[in-house]
């Protein structure tokens, strides 16, 4: 993984997750952008991101990629934050439903670290 992604994971682990906010249009986006995806502005600043989010969709993965070989089935969720961004992560917990509140975290396996959402 590139260093920007490791920095994001480090920040999540330290409880300092962040997103980018555009000074010109107010749009929210995710690192490592230099340009606002909504308006093209270069005036982006890092802002604190909530630790919890709401499940907007999910799927249990049965056929996977080599990095997760032998780990199926596991569930991937997309969860939305109040700050206006979504993240994609692996679900940690028994069962997930649409609209559930989940907490952002970091998981690890032999192939490296990844974002997780744990049931709250």
């Amino acid at each position, binding site marked *: 993984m590139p260093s920007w992604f490791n920095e994001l994971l480090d920040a999540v682990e330290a409880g300092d997750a962040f997103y980018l906010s555009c000074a010109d249009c107010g749009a929210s*986006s995710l690192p490592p952008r230099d340009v606002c995806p909504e308006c093209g502005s270069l005036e982006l600043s890092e802002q604190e991101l909530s630790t919890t989010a709401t499940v907007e*969709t999910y*799927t249990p993965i*049965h056929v996977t990629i080599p990095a997760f070989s032998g780990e199926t089935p596991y569930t991937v969720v997309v969860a939305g934050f109040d700050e206006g961004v979504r993240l994609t992560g692996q679900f940690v917990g028994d069962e997930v439903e649409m609209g559930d509140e989940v907490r952002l975290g970091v998981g690890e396996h032999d192939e490296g670290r990844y974002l997780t959402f744990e049931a709250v």
Partner: protein
Amino acid sequence: MRVNVAGAYSTKFGKHPESSARELLTDACLGALEDADVSPVEIDGIHVGNFMGELTDDQGHMGVMTADYLGTTGVPATRSESACASSGWAVREAAQAVESGTADVALVAGVEMMHATGIERLTDALANAADNEYENSCGLTFPGIFALIARDYMDEFGVTREELAEVTVKNRANGVDNPIAQYQEGVTVDDVLEARPIAPPVGMLDSCPITDGASAVLLVSPEYADENGLDAPASVVGSGASSASLALQDRDVLSRTRAAERAAERAYEHAGVAPEDVDVAEVHDCFTIAEILAVESLGFFERGEGAYAAVEGETAPDGRIPVNTSGGLIAKGHPVGATGVAQVVELAKQIEGEHPTQVEGAETAVAHNVGGSGASTTVHVLQAEGAGGGS
């Protein structure tokens, strides 16, 4: 725009364990040239769609490879890559080259060899169409992304798995009579529901299969067709393309394909036609949910209504707007880099009146080719000589 489709050909789609990308590409190109009755020496531009040759065949640079194997070394040749929309882009670039006068005779081809690669490595290669850091790192797969989209859509509109399955039932029925289709046997809704799960609500039969195959079309200027007495009843009369965020999580509505909506709007405007003018369409049904989003993005159905198109027979061969009379990606197969040009092959046959599942009086046709989870899309409008529009 008016660029004539002088020749069109697809190899059999399915398993080709004894073949290779260069052999299938050559077969498809020679097929299209023979169909056009044009010699390879006439070609003055080659555009090849291929997504992942580096990963499946250790082979890139397929534009040049095609020129070489057709005995046309010296002709400008390139490869287009836009994930599963690679050859839709190749069609667009070739049509623009002919329209601008850069080329009189442009060959478009596409190929993908998928069977020889193991399922996990292939799933990994396909996942390159997604966002490697934000999506693949946590174990999200390509079918998984469409499952995320499907669940969002089903939740918003109260759609069931049975209703999604009707897309597969229709397309598998359409594939029965298509001699190049990978699957030529019908299935039932129960078959789809009981199939092995890949990433629920996406199961094996909600998904296109793994396919080897190649397709090619020869595009020429109307002047060249006239001067050489070519029989070319179908023409490309409009081309649109657009993009959206690489990662699904960054889209304003998860189950809306804005790139396709924009590409369709541009293609219709370019062609001077409206969605109501379209007689037949080939759309990118890599998964059942993808056809539903396609018919909405193309303006055939309102958002939320696309799910009932196949259920109510509106997209059947005798319906209001027949979709995927070829069997689509689900039955015909999806050699990803060949799909965009394969759609044009099928639609040219519809306009010529020679399709195995012919739509009576088909004069205006649309091809919709999607890259990634909807991050890129090309839409092309084809018309018969003398049909309206095509300014």
